[in-house]
């Protein structure tokens, strides 16, 4: 077969097309800081307003039990060890003092048992990294609809760029944006006082980015694939709005799954958001549990591979009418 081709191997040509498409959108995105700001605003508001006000830890703190006047406690002498005659009287003031301390210890322990950490703000702040990644990834389908409407997609389709590369350029784009925006959210969280576990080190940052990358690849593959044939961005907005909320709330992004009813727990167990969020928490605020972390990453890797393969297959099949 004789094809007039330039003196470079085919895979290099494909990569060139892929990166050209990806850079085109990244370039536009960087030129519009407003869009970036709008995107990170929502998770930041959740973090600041909800995270700081829903200070669950404070409920169990010593202050909550101030000014509770307990009556003096009288205990029959035969009940104590060793038994004595008569009644033992413990003054209410001493009781209050002890219970204050006791409850705040119990409360802190209970929080730690449920959330894995005694500080809800830190718990939520990490969840918000998941939130921004979900937003960015689900919106990636929009850009293919715009490309179609503005005619640009037609041009791309008439060039030798493989169809899967068209989808994958958008997916990569979403992943890069997710990582960038997560960094902003994460940085702000640190400023607002996330309490890292002692096992945190800067190397963990690589793991954090890997988790975000894998999750974003998987989710945006799905959403770009859904938009392959779509000509209306309204439909896309509706789909995004309909799916982000359930994705968030059927996961551990806001609250631990252990508090959920069974049916919700089952959903949370297959929801990849749970695995990303857990991986992020293991790497930042929890004292790292390596086997669990490995499980998280395995799940995320499977999610990313299966959905991107599915997406690219669909692109190959359905991008031509």
């Amino acid at each position, binding site marked *: 077969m004789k094809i007039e081709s330039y003196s470079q191997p085919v895979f290099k*040509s494909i990569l060139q097309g892929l990166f050209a498409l990806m850079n085109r959108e990244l370039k536009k995105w960087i030129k519009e800081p407003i869009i970036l700001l709008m995107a990170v605003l929502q998770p930041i508001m959740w973090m600041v307003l909800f995270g700081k006000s829903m200070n669950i830890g404070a409920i169990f703190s010593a202050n909550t039990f101030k000014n509770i006047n307990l009556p003096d406690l009288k205990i029959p002498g035969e009940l104590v060890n060793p038994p004595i005659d008569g009644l033992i009287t413990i003054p209410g003031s001493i009781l209050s003092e002890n219970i204050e301390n006791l409850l705040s210890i119990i409360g802190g322990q209970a929080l730690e048992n449920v959330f894995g950490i005694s500080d809800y703000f830190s718990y939520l702040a990490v969840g918000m990294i998941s939130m921004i990644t979900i937003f960015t990834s689900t919106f990636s389908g929009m850009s293919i609809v715009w490309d179609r409407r*503005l005619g640009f997609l037609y*041009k791309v389709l*008439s060039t*030798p760029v493989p169809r899967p590369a068209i989808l994958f350029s958008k997916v990569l784009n979403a992943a890069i944006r997710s990582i960038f925006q997560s960094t902003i959210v994460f940085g702000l969280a640190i400023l607002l006082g996330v309490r890292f576990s002692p096992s945190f080190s800067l190397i963990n940052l690589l793991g954090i980015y890997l988790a975000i990358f894998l999750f974003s690849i998987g989710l945006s593959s799905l959403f770009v694939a859904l938009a392959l044939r779509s000509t209306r961005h309204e439909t896309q907005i509706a789909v995004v709005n309909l799916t982000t909320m359930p994705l968030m709330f059927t996961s551990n992004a806001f609250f631990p799954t252990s508090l959920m009813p069974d049916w919700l727990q089952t959903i949370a167990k297959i929801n990849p958001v749970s695995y990303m969020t857990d991986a992020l928490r293991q790497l930042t605020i929890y004292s790292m549990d390596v086997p669990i972390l490995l499980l998280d990453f395995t799940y995320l890797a499977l999610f990313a591979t299966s959905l991107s393969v599915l997406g690219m297959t669909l692109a190959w099949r359905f991008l031509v009418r």
Partner: protein
Amino acid sequence: MAKDVIIVDNLTKIFDKNLVAVDHISFTVKEGEVFGLLGPNGAGKTTTINMLVTVLKPTEGRASILGYDIVKQASIVRRLIGVVPQDYTADEDLTGYENIILCGDLYGIPREVSKKTALELLEFLGLMKFKDKKVETYSGGMRRRLELACGLVNKPKVLFLDEPTLGLDVQTRAAIWEYIKRLREEYNMTILMTTHYMEEADNLCDRIAIIDHGKIVVMGSPEELKNSIGSDVVEVEIKEKDDILDMIQKIEYVKDVKKVGESSYLIRLENGERTAPEIIEFIRDSGLHVVKLSLRKPSLDEVFLTYTGRAIRDIEESRESLMTRRILLRRARG
């Protein structure tokens, strides 16, 4: 004998199970030929081009370009052809130069090559001055030329032009015709184009297929088509007042004669260039004198009217309004 570069065999596209947009059309285009698809709105011209450039899958039939099947060997076909679509496809946020380079990247052309080609094309199409301006500031004519540049960046052997001069003023249109002619002459490029300007088809195309309701109604060189509906028109005026109506009617190649003035006649005949002189001689032989003679060829407008039953002018009207609407739509979007 030039070889067949585009071979279309019973190509058919049915949208949504019942809308037959292209209905079993067949034609071939030879190397270096400019072939025109001419037809009213919705005739199926764009759909035909979209199938040939592998953006749409045919429902039935087959086609090949330079010997490569448009379905089975689509990626090879894409590498070899250039496409200038009906609608604008450039990225408005990028400059003209960036757009051409982007197209080059999509074809996998090494940057050092595509940078050189881009400058050549900008020069060729007279866009050099605007090369670093964003496309959103371009006029319609500049955008068309940029589309042409993008379609040429891979130095294609076969070029597809869908309404290359739609909505352009007379000068810009003439300039684009000039580019198209140069492409054919200098690079021996094979070109398949659609148009609704009769003048354009007449001027540029070696052969034309008139297409209506997805079917090819008639095909041939502009000359052949004009001849096929018969008759050039010769108008003669003689000095004398004698009635020569019957006399002329009897000449074998004359189809029809009408007396239009005191001594003027409108004669419809075939092959005007050859037969008009014979008419003069015939009149002179009868002892009469011709004082005035004019020969008119039938225009493609008449051909179009004859074969589709519609005048192209009505179509042109709605076409321009369509174009305006498209532009308005684009503005509304952003």
